């Protein structure tokens, strides 16, 4: 059972994601973006960073990488696909997830801790979390303002596709970037493709200030073990 962590030119959270997965007992390979075949991998991660320098738009040029066709094929076949931060941006740009991620309303890159509420705990990515559990996770992005037109937004809500929402809690947290409906993470209709702006891989050890991201990796491990 192995997970592919895709490395685009300019990805920079690939090793961190690998580290978090390996710590959770999940085997990984770093897979260069020109790789045309992901046969044999049981899940795919698109890590954070600045693919192609985030030139033009964050994640915009990554959709042209050869590996993306293969990522789409796995997604269509129901394999778990996770895009974190720049990975989320790439997934929307490539059309694997609806909507888009625009420049933060504060117009600058923002690195800080946010609070997000787990809106669904019935996914392969969230099963170990409590219903509506509030997580402390770091964000680090300049283009994280989720946008989608009204119909899409309605469909997302009706289809319970919003997985993570920024929340304010005891004067802390709040919406850091102007995302519509405080959206921090969504899944596709089928529920196997997840995109999220916060960085779970940066919250898996006490020494890093939070362990709230660990649940995502553990949930995935369980899901994959059941499949296997």
């Amino acid at each position, binding site marked *: 059972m192995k997970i592919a962590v895709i490395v685009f030119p300019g990805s920079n*959270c690939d090793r*961190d994601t690998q580290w978090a997965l390996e710590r959770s007992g999940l085997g990984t390979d770093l897979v*260069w973006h020109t790789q045309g075949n992901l046969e044999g991998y049981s899940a795919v991660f698109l890590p954070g960073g*600045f693919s192609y320098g985030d030139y033009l738009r964050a994640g915009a040029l990554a959709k042209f990488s050869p590996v993306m066709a293969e990522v789409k094929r796995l997604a269509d076949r129901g394999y778990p696909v996770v895009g974190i931060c720049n990975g989320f941006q790439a997934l929307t740009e490539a059309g694997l997830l609806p909507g888009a991620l625009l420049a933060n309303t504060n117009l*600058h*890159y*923002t690195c800080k801790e946010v609070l997000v509420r787990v809106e669904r705990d019935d996914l392969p990515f969230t099963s170990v979390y409590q219903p509506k559990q509030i997580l402390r996770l770091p964000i680090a992005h300049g283009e994280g303002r989720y946008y989608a037109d009204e119909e899409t937004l309605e469909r997302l809500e009706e289809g319970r596709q919003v997985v993570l929402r920024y929340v304010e809690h005891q004067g802390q947290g709040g919406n850091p970037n102007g995302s519509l409906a405080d959206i921090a993470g969504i899944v596709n209709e089928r529920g196997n493709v997840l995109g999220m702006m916060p960085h779970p891989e940066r919250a898996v050890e006490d020494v890093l200030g939070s362990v709230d991201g660990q649940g995502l990796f553990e949930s995935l491990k369980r899901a994959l073990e059941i499949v296997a």
Partner: protein
Amino acid sequence: MEETLTPISTSAEAMLKETGIPPQEYREIVRRMGREPNRLELYLFKVMWSEHCSYKNSRPLLRMLPKEGPAVLQGPGENAGVVDIGEGYAVAFKIESHNHPSAVEPVQGAATGVGGIIRDIMAMGARPIALLNSLRFGKLEGHEGQRTRYLVGGVVGGIAHYGNAIGIPTVAGEVYFHPDYQENPLVNAMCVGLLRTDELKKSRASLGRPVYYAGAKTGRDGIGGAAFASEELSENNEAKRPNVQVGDPFLGKLLMEGTLEAIQRDLVEGVQDMGAAGLTSSLSEMAHKSGLGLELNLDQVPQRETGMNPLELMLSESQERMVFVPRPGKEKELEALFAHYGLDCVPVAQVIQEPVFRIKAGGEVVAEVPTDALADAPTYTREMQESPEVQSLRSKDLSALPIPADLAPILPQLLSSPNLCSRTPVFERYDQQVGTNTALVPGKGDAAILRIKGTGRAIAVKVDANPRYSKLHPRLGAMHALAEAARNVSVVGGRPLAYTDGLNCGNPETPHGYYELSETISGLAEASRALGIPVVSGNVSLYNEGPSYRIPPTPMVGVVGLLENLEKRAEQGFKKAGEFIVLIGEPLGELGASEYLWVTQKLEAGNPPRLDLGREAKTQAAIRELIYLDLTRTAHDVAEGGLAVALAEMTFPYSVGATVEIREQDRPDALLFGEAPSRILFTVNQAKLHEATRLLELSGLKYRILGQTGGSELTVLLPRTQLKWGVNELKSVWEAPLREVLP
């Protein structure tokens, strides 16, 4: 006596005017070459003999600095210094200035400064794991404030742009405002890299080897920048202004991964970055350090623009370029590796026996210079004299200062001053965590902590300088800079191993400028010896003066410390109620050169606080011991703004208040806001209080149990008065000022 010397040919005189090379240096060049140089050759000298590359005014002084220490694997002289941190690992680090480029174009100036220091670290075979920066700006208020705001936004944006994109966390730094930086903002960037001790690389090449050029193509970027960086920013620079160098963190990231992979796969024997003065300095220095010569073929240099002439190619400062000497038989692998990353990697030169730097273009030799002639620029020791204005400011009698009737408003006033207010608006624009090693993020402690994966260890890093101390007393100011940087590392639990210093001063050709440079370095040397912390790398930036302002000497000292056990660390904020607050040292501080004087009276005068280096060393050892023995997890040094500000800063992170009592009868403003080194606040619980105080007694240090943590207020009981501030009120005035500059 000039006229008695051999006359200079008229053709040469034109070139001297053009290059700005002084006649006596030209004569030296002719002597060393045994003939008159051609224009290209003369420019090679102009660049290599510029202050930035040759340190001709500082090298004799830098010899004063202690460079040996048990942990030192590589001292000054290579691209960066390297210290051993155990378990087979070492860290490489260095600070570099990018002041002038940042004044011309703040975003790109700062961005390329970050990119440049990163490549210095890569060149040692280290993977960069942390960035720091030290910034100095002029006035925020009034008309001049507009430019300052523009510069702050641009510089912070440029650092974020490059560091965030290339994926190296920016974990610590400092920002300081002072009118004397109005015309010369300072932007120094420091980078720390991690390597296996057996992968340490140097800038070396052996006979007959091809020399490879890798990375970005060469364009007409920053032509003459290195020379530019060594001239005062004056009106006529406008004309000389080079094509602004633009950084490309995307290409930089690919170049970094390619370089580190080449080293880790042992494909290269020598590595060198192309920094200031590009091909000229990187290649000639590599040849010189190897005691050999080098023949460069310009026709092979990848070019971005058409029709570039040899001079432009040699002076170009295009970013994201490296130089490699492959191991025999590994050439093809090296080329393939960079092809994989979509980067040029081609042989451009050959190492030769003859100790000359020979440049060919179109099949012809266009320049040939002895390598040592280029590398060993003449050095200068100049006459020095302290500026009388500074003397009179320092000798001002402050004992007569009125004591404010109401002290309560002063704390919020200090906390909202540009130099003491919250830095969050700055560092929240930096990625502080990529790499998932940052165990103590900016704002949570006096220094940043980075754990070393695969070991139980960590390093602590911080850069510091107090311009006000240095302005009023350059020598003492430099000593304070090292003491404070080391103290900041110690209060989080790190044992200082070595430091890098970014020396920013004025014009060394003036007696005042040279005095400040010389005093700064000898002060550093003395503190270095007394604290047992050697220098392993650094940078010198001179001529930081404009028509109306000369910067205060600004020795930015970047200290790297070791935590043998990651778990034994401390942070700055009060965490829970009911802990005892202990002060190592005494409550009474000094008013001279204090932020209090400046903020309340716009007065910059008096002597900086006295510094007893012996006590400083003991104090730092004591806090490290307290942390190591699990007697405390919360510690913070008392710096600018004095005791009251330090206490307030400890209440902010977790909004936990405190009540303390000061019994001294001295003037209350000196007790609350006076400044003095060798003072550290820490908390300890009831059960461990005795053990903690015993440790302090045994080490012969004065200490005071000031009070306890708890509540939502900061309360200070003085002999005659009681002061009370709401933590949240203080916090909001503290957070506001920079947020308004960086929305």
